């Protein structure tokens, strides 16, 4: 139990494994936002991301007993969803994200700042799209999801120097595109 009275990940896992499957709702509510954001950035489509996350969380529920470190549930869930995203990308003829799915347009009533922000987001999304899946994954895990390199290594199975190199390359590629377009 944390300071807010919410059960810890280890407690939730124990409850679900003890037969309280409704307790899995805590897992969904706790991690859905981050997983959906990660998958959307990887796949470029909210619908495809929703499929990947839903498949991943159902899979996580069914194999919860194999989660060796319930206290690190977050890392385990990201690993499952990362693999679902890779499977989705492998089903496409090329490994990049679709360009035709534009982000939601800002309502002009929201003001010029919101419009500008939406344009910036579209630009950044396009730049992210240009990265290889490996670099995109590394950048999003590091800078969007705020994970440490140790957590990223646990999720991807890659070595920390490899991940650092990918993040560095991703930053350089993104900066190149963003500086050219602004």
């Amino acid at each position, binding site marked *: 139990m944390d300071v807010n009275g919410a059960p810890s990940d280890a407690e939730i896992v124990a409850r679900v494994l003890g037969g309280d499957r409704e307790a899995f*709702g805590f897992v969904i509510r706790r991690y859905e936002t981050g997983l959906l*954001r990660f998958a959307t950035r990887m796949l470029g489509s*909210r619908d495809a991301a929703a499929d990947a996350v839903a498949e991943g969380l159902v899979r996580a529920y069914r194999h919860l007993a194999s989660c060796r470190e319930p206290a690190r549930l977050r890392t385990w869930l990201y690993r499952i969803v990362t693999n679902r995203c890779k499977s989705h990308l492998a089903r496409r003829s090329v490994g990049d994200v679709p360009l035709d799915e534009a982000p939601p347009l800002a309502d002009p009533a929201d003001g010029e700042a919101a419009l500008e922000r939406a344009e910036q*987001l579209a630009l*950044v999304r396009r730049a992210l799209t240009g990265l290889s899946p490996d670099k995109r994954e590394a950048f999003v895990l590091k800078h969007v999801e705020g994970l440490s390199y140790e957590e990223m290594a646990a999720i991807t199975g890659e070595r920390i120097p490899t991940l650092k190199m990918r993040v560095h390359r991703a930053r*350089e590629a993104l900066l190149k595109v963003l500086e050219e377009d602004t």
Partner: protein
Amino acid sequence: MNTIDARIHQVLDGELPIDALPAELRHRMQVVRGAADLLAVPVPGPSLESRIMAEVRRPAPSFMRRMASWFATPHAVTFRVRPVWSVAFAAAVAVFTVFFARDAGPQLGEHEGIAQFVGRFPNARSVHVVGTFNDWRPGTIALQDLDHDGVWTATVVLPTGTYEYMFVVDGERWVPDHLADRLVADDFGRENSVVIVRPVHR
């Protein structure tokens, strides 16, 4: 490659305080950080909880059904090979090829042998071999120069025997093979090359 000053990476990796970054480098760091902040905004849309919990409440599929589903679904397969194992594998294949696979090849009849034709024609566009084995018909046996070094070769299986032949260069120039086993005069005052095809003993 648009390289970034190493100190920007260090700040973004949390290894260096931002104060340590010169003012002229801060803008580039802020561009990267700003992009990340934009991407970190939650993706709007309905919650997946009801969809996932509906699956959670459904009885798990049987083992056979899961297996069928697994085989029917595409999976990403990643091979990661250490260079040392690649070299070892290549060496093993080479050893196998040398000691075990050298007998592999076309299955020749008792009265068949292999004839190899080699000629040096540096500027040729095409080279064919004609002779008594193909009734002197050009265009049936082409020589190849795969590495473009001007040396054209062809290896063909022929019935055992002695044959006269010539090369036809670029479809019009008939020249004998001076490296042949021997040369003989033909009825037109020219020389034909001679090749003797012997049976291959196994």
